[in-house]
C-alpha cells in the first residue's frame, strides 16, 4: 500500500523539514501527545504521585480528588500512578518490538533487493509465512511454550513486524536500484553493501520512519490486547490492557476504571498516528501538488 513515490527526491524539502512541520497540525498535535506520554513514562522511573503497587484497601474505589488525580481502583492503587507505569510498559514493549522489526526487517529487505534471485524469493516467502502468524497466535504459542510474560508480547509483536519492514524496505529499495545514480555507483566499483549504506538507506529512511510510527502505535494496541487476555505483562507490573481486564468486573460500579486506561491507549495511538500522518504529508511531494481530474464545475 505504501508506494515508492514517497521518498522525496528533493533535498531542499529535507532541510527545511522542521520548519515545515510546524505548519502541519497533525505533526504538531501528534508530536505533543507523543512527547507527553513519553515524558510520563520517563518520569515514572523517578517519581509517581503514589506508590502504584501498594495495596490500600481503605482507599479503594475513590473518586477523582486532589490527592488521587484519577481516583483509585478496587485495591486502592492510585490510578494516575498506574497509568504512568502503564505508559512506561506500553511504550517499552512497542518500542522494542519496532526495534526488532526494523532491526531485522530492514537489513533483510535491503539484502533481498540488492541480491535478487532466489535469495529475494526466499526472504519474501519467509515474510509471507510470518504474516500467517498474527501476534496473538505467536503469543499463544510462546505462552504455551514458556508461560506468560511481557517478553512474549515483545517477541510476538516484534516477529510480526519483521516482514512489515522487510517488504517496505525491499519495495522501496528495488525501485531505487533501477535508478541511474545507483548504476553510476555500481560503475564506480562500489559493492552492494556500500551502495545500500551510501545511497539506498538514506533515501528510504523517510519511509521507514513513517512506517515506524505506525508500527509503534499498532504495537501499543497489540500489547494492550495481549495483556488484556493475560498473555502479556504479568502482575504486579501494571499495564493498560491488564487494568482494563480487571476493570471489567467493576464496570457497573466504577466505569471510570475502564474508561481512563482506555483513553490513555486511544490518546497515545492517536498521537502516534497523527505524528505519522504529519510526517508523511511533509515527506510526500504528491500530497500537496495534487491536481484532481477535471470538473471545476462538477461539484
Amino acid at each position: 500500500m505504501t508506494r515508492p513515490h514517497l521518498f522525496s527526491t528533493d533535498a531542499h524539502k529535507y532541510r527545511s523539514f522542521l520548519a515545515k512541520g510546524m505548519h502541519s497540525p497533525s505533526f504538531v498535535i501528534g508530536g505533543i501527545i507523543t512527547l507527553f506520554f513519553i515524558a510520563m513514562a520517563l518520569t515514572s522511573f523517578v517519581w509517581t504521585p503514589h506508590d502504584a503497587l501498594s495495596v490500600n484497601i481503605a482507599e479503594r474505589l475513590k473518586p477523582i480528588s486532589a490527592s488521587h488525580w484519577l481516583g483509585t481502583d478496587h485495591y486502592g492503587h492510585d490510578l494516575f500512578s498506574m497509568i504512568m507505569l502503564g505508559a512506561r510498559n506500553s511504550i517499552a514493549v512497542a518500542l522494542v518490538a519496532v526495534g526488532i522489526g526494523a532491526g531485522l526487517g530492514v537489513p533483510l529487505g535491503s539484502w533481498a533487493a540488492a541480491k535478487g534471485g532466489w535469495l529475494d524469493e526466499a526472504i519474501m516467502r519467509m515474510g509471507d509465512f510470518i504474516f500467517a502468524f498474527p501476534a496473538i497466535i505467536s503469543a499463544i504459542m510462546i505462552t504455551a511454550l514458556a508461560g506468560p510474560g511481557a517478553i512474549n508480547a515483545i517477541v510476538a509483536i516484534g516477529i510480526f513486524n519483521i516482514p512489515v519492514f522487510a517488504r517496505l524496505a525491499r519495495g522501496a529499495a528495488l525501485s531505487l536500484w533501477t535508478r541511474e545514480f545507483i548504476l553510476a555507483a555500481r560503475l564506480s566499483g562500489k559493492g552492494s553493501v556500500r551502495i545500500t549504506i551510501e545511497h539506498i538507506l538514506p533515501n528510504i529512511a523517510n519511509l521507514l520512519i513513517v512506517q515506524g510510527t505506525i508500527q509503534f502505535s499498532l504495537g501499543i494496541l497489540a500489547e494492550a490486547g495481549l495483556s488484556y487476555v493475560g498473555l502479556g505483562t504479568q502482575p504486579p507490573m501494571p499495564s493498560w490492557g491488564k487494568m482494563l481486564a480487571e476493570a471489567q468486573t467493576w464496570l457497573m460500579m466504577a466505569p471510570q476504571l475502564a474508561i481512563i486506561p482506555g483513553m490513555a491507549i486511544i490518546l497515545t495511538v492517536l498521537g502516534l498516528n497523527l505524528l505519522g500522518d504529519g510526517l508523511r504529508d511533509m515527506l510526500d511531494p504528491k500530497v500537496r501538488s495534487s491536481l484532481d481530474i477535471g470538473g471545476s464545475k462538477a461539484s
Partner: protein
Amino acid sequence: MSLLTLDNVSLTIGDKPILQNISFSLERGQCLGLVGESGSGKSLTALSIMQLLPRQSHLAGSIHLAGENLVDLPERQLCKRRGNLMGMVFQEPMTALNPLKPIGAQVEECILLHSAVTRHEAEGLARRQLQRVGLDPDQISPGRFPHQLSGGQRQRVVIAMAIAMKPDLIIADEPTTALDVTSQAEILRLLKDLMSEDQSALMLISHDLAVVADMANSIAIMKKGRIVEQGPLPQLFDSLAHPYSIRLFESSTHKPKRQKPPLFGDDPSLAAVAPILSAHSVVRTYPLPRQFPYLERRATRAVDGVDLTIHKGQSIGLVGESGCGKSTLARTLLGLDAPQEGSVHIGRHDPYSANKSDLRKVRRDIQIVFQDPNGSFNPRHKIGRSVAEPLYLCRKDISREERDERIATSLQQVGLTPDDAEKFPHEFSGGERQRIAIARALITRPKIIIADEPVSALDVSIRAQILDLFTDLRDRLDLSYLFISHDLSVVRSVTDEIMVMYRGRIIERGRTEAIFQNPREPYTRALIGAAPDLHKTIARRRKEAE
C-alpha cells in the same frame, strides 16, 4: 465563423498564473499546431478547451466552439459536448486506457453515451471505428485488454474513442511523443486521413516543430503561458520575428560544428593501434519466468551476436527503436551484465574476467551518461560528492586535494563553476544536470563515454547546447563516444559512423552520411523515412503551397 475561437483566455491555478491572454481561432477541417517546450502551457490550453481543468483553477476570457461559449456552459451540458463535439487524444497511450476493460467496450461506451443506439448496434459501430483506425476486429479482437496491445495500437484505440462520434474538433496532445518513430509516422498519417474524411478540425500539440510543420495549416508558438507568435504555414517560417521562435527553429535544426575531421573505422592510422572498446559476437539472453515449476525455461535474446570495435577519437552511433536491445548492449559493454556468449574487451582487459585491480583500471577508461538527468544523482548528496563518485575507482592513488581539483576541472570543462560542487541536484535545471552528469563521466579521464539517450529528456534548445558540449569535449579531449539514441537527427549530428540495431542484431553499419543518403536495409530505410526532418518538410510544404 470559426469553429473554435479562444479570446483572451487566462488561467490561474491556485495563485499561479498559467496561461495569459491566449487568443487563436481554428476553422473547420483545418489543423492548428501548438508548439512549445515543456511547461509552456500547451496541455493546459487543451484542457481549458475541454473544460477539464484541475479544481483550484480559474479561467477568464471566452472559448467558443461552434458558436457556444464553453466557459459559461454548466457541467451537464459540457458532458454532452465532450466526446461528441470535441474529442481528445492524450500523450501516454500506456496509461490512457482503463486496464480492466476490453478495448471494444471502451470505444462502445463513448457511442452509447452520445447516441440513441442499442448496445448491439453500439458494438457494431465500435468495431467499425476500430477498423477505421487500423485495428481490424478480425485480427485484434475488441475483447482484448489494453495490456495485450503495443503502445502504437493503444494510441489507435484512444483515437478510435476520440473520433467515434465524428466530432468537429479533435485535440491531440503530444499524441506520438511516447511512440517509436515508425509508429509516430503511422499515427500522424492516420490522424491526417481521419481529419479529411470527417472534415474535423485538429489541434495538434507538440514540442517537435518538425511534426507540426508536417501537419498544420497554421501554427502558434507558446512560451511561458503566452503565444509569442502565430500564423499560417509555410509562410510563417519565412517571417519568424520573435527571438524565441527563431531560437526554437534554429535549435530544431542545429548541427554542432566539429573542428577536427571525422574519423572512420577504416582509417589507416587505426589499423596499428589496439581498439579502446571491442565486442565479439556478444549474446545476452534473459530468461523468461517459468510458467510453472519444472517446465522448461524460455529466454529472450536481447542482444544477439553483436560485434563492434571503437578506436580512440571515434564517435559511433547506435540507433534503434525501444526494446531493440540498445540499453542491454550498453550495460554489457560497461561490464554490468555478463554476456552468455562472446566477449567484451575494454582496452586489453575483459571486465568479466579481469582481477580486481585491473577491473578498477578498466572502469576508469569507460564512463556513461544517462538519459534522465533527474535520476542521475542521489538527491541527498551534494553535486561534488556525486561528481567525484567514480574516483572511488582510484581511491588509493588520489589525495583529497587532487580530488577537489579534479572536481573543479570537470565542472569547468562542462561549463559550470567549481562552486557548484557545494549545491544539491535540485538547485539545477535539467540541462545543467545533464552537464553535471557529463562532468561525472569526465572525472576519471576516460577514453570512451557511452551516452545512453543523453538528450532525449531535454527540451530542444537545451538539447542543442548539450550536443555542442559533447562535440566540443570530443575535440578537446580526444574522447570516443558510443552514442545511443532512438532519435536519428541527434545521432546524425554528433557521430561519424552509425550502427542500426533491430531485434538484438546490428543489421546495418557504416558512415553516417552514407547510410542516411543511401540506406540498404528496408528497416533502415523505413526508420529514416519516418523520422521527421524540419528542413525537408518545409521544403515540401513550400512546394505544395506554390
